[in-house]
């Protein structure tokens, strides 16, 4: 039996905002939710210039490490108003997602992953999305045990660690250069 071939990707192009503006998209929880934080950062190109026409999407577990999804075999998430999903356009280069800090998530092989957020980045000039993860610099113990982070050289690991700010965390994404973010093939 021949399987159907997967449809090839294409760039979002410069006019993504027409189709992909989702009202309130940057809110994975309402802003007044107890414990709500902002994840922010700037997307930089290979010249070190901010990328003003990218889109960042985030997907993550809730503070208990559960997903609002039927394929989470442990059952549904229990945080009313929390969707786990955020979408932010980088006007002036900066993304901002209002969410809850995720809990630790089982790695499926008996261990726990450190709290993390999966990120898809789309932009003109990228023919497919690029994928990365946001981890949290103040989770040193969990990060040291994380199966993904442990697979990376120390200097590369730093590109994934968001640092605490007044209202949440900050992680810049570098598409190229010395500090090029670790991108993942999924």
């Amino acid at each position, binding site marked *: 039996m021949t*399987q*159907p*071939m*997967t*449809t*090839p*990707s*294409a*760039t979002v*192009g*410069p*006019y993504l*905002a*027409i*189709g*992909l503006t*989702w009202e309130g998209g940057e809110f994975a929880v309402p802003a007044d939710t107890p414990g709500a934080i902002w994840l922010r950062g700037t997307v930089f190109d*290979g010249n070190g*210039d901010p990328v003003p*026409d990218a889109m960042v999407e985030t*997907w*993550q*577990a809730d*503070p208990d*490490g559960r*997903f609002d*999804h039927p*394929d*989470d075999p*442990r059952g549904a998430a229990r945080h009313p108003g929390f969707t*786990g*999903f955020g979408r932010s356009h980088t006007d002036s280069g900066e993304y901002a997602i209002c969410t809850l800090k995720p*809990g630790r*998530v*089982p790695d*499926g092989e*008996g261990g*726990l992953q450190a709290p993390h957020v*999966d990120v*898809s980045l*789309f*932009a*003109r*000039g*990228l*023919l*497919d999305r*690029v*994928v990365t*993860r946001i981890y949290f610099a103040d989770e040193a113990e969990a990060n040291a045990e994380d199966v993904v982070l442990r*697979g*990376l050289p120390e200097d590369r690991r730093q590109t994934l660690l968001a640092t605490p700010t007044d209202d949440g965390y900050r992680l810049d994404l570098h*598409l*190229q250069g010395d500090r*090029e*973010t670790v*991108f*993942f*093939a*999924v």
Partner: protein
Amino acid sequence: MTGTTPGSRLDLRRYARTDVALRTPVGYADYKSTGLRAPLRTPVDLPHRLTEVTGPLLGEDRVTAADADLTKRLGGEAQGQRIIVHGRVLDSDGRPVPNTLVEVWQANAAGRYRHVVDNWPAPLDPHFDGLGRVMTDDQGRYEFTTVKPGAYPWGNHHNAWRPAHIHFSLFGRAFTQRLVTQMYFPDDPLFFQDPIFNSIPEGARHLAISRFDYERTVPDWALGFQWDIVLRGAEQTPFETEDDGDVA
């Protein structure tokens, strides 16, 4: 207190990885904008765990029937060749992907986008905003009515024109299945000079082109085009047989 239990093995669905030779590369030299944007390092393999095999299930509560008709907006009717675009969203196992959000956006019949940075001298259409949203039905089918988008020039190379296309965005049911792509129309004479089309490996280009569908063409109303979209399906393990109905 995390509420999670380490120690147990989770039996998770894993998603197939498309052969690199049939995937659009992130960067492509003839498409100039990739130069400073496409990452230069080799991406690190990320095995599929809970975060990757789940994903946002959006739309049901926000998409209305009117979102599937791009020809009736802002109190009037769009100019141009009215078309019906339809098809199925499947995974690479051939299974339909039901109840999934499909977002589309496009230029108007003259090839102009309703967007601040599109200012080439083609007219805007007061009754066309270029945005559509539909949910697939329980068979994975989608359909929307629009006008055929025009070709438009851009600055990539001398006399560069984008072939007519409609942008599509899909979620499927897992982070791994997320897809943003473009649908083309059959036999477009502009394919040869378009780096975005030609960045698709040759063996996969036909998958980005819709088919004229006389069956779905409605007399005295609209031309039909059919385009199926295939998202990544389950990874085939060596332990599974072709008809793996009751093989664990």
